[in-house]
């Protein structure tokens, strides 16, 4: 009875939050605005097609955001009842194998008695903690992707309305750049500290064979983020020139 009360309250709060978010999104990224824009732009122009595609993705994202929590809870509850349940989650791991540490093995003929490298270790999320951690990391990824899609959609909409060079677009690109950089720094750390903790627990750790969580920094992602920041600066400059040009009579 007590748990039903807690679940009921949580459900009411959840519905309230979802409705609130939907209203905010509807207000800020006005769906009705498209009707006015479609009059002065070609129906099947490239911008229009991109806009429609982004609309489709955005609708899917919103559906995911709304359905995520109930699905997560239902899956977690069912997981507790079935022993064999769980997702396979890959995680990066480094390994080293040291023949020197093995007793009764002659390593004098080996040029490299130590072998090391990187590997992907797959483990399942049958632990409830691992399951929630996996779900949370996936949800954060979805949120970041949602944010980027919203920003790009807003940019495409401003392109449709003829506002190619605007300070708003510059700040949107800057936001995407910042998110890209932060994401590419946080993801490896997350991988190292969260999944790494599990690998330490489930894998044997002797002196001869060692597994450790690997830290994979996506340099390309960081460079793309920085380039987006530079692009944003350029667009800001272009927006100022465009504004001055508009005020030249």
């Amino acid at each position, binding site marked *: 009875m007590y748990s039903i009360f807690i679940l009921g309250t949580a459900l009411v709060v959840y519905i309230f939050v979802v409705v609130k978010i939907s209203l905010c999104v509807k207000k800020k990224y006005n769906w009705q605005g498209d009707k006015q824009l479609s009059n002065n732009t070609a129906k099947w122009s490239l911008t229009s097609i991109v806009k429609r595609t982004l609309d489709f993705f955005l609708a899917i994202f919103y559906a995911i955001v709304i359905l995520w929590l109930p699905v997560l809870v239902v899956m977690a509850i069912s997981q507790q009842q079935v022993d064999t349940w769980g997702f396979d989650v890959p995680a990066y791991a480094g390994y080293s194998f040291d023949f020197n540490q093995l007793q009764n093995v002659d390593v004098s003929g080996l040029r490299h008695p130590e072998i090391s490298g990187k590997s992907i270790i797959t483990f399942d999320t049958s632990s409830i903690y691992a399951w929630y951690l996996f779900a949370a990391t996936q949800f954060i990824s979805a949120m970041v992707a949602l944010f980027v899609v919203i920003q790009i959609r807003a940019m495409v909409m401003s392109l449709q309305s003829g506002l190619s060079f605007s300070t708003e677009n510059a700040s949107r690109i800057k936001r995407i750049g910042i998110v890209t950089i932060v994401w590419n720094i946080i993801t490896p750390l997350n991988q190292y500290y969260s999944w790494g903790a599990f690998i330490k627990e489930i894998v044997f750790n002797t002196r001869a064979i060692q597994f450790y969580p690997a830290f994979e920094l996506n340099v390309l992602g960081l460079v793309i983020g920085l380039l987006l920041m530079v692009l944003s600066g350029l667009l800001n400059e272009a927006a100022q020139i465009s504004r001055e040009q508009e*005020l030249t009579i």
Partner: protein
Amino acid sequence: MSTSIKVNLDLLLVQRKVSLTELSEQVGITMANLSILKRGKAKAIRFSTLIALCDVLECQPGDILELEESND
């Protein structure tokens, strides 16, 4: 102390007894742009615009534009 350019378009319009709409039609500038110019919100003015304005208002560029010192 800063200096700025003041546009004396309203004064000239009164002196020449020409309305903004008439000026807009004769010069070939939109009312919106002419309004920006009149209110002193314009960032720059093209020589071609200045020539057209001087032709219609029968004046010199110095009559339209004036250097103004303000205490901003």
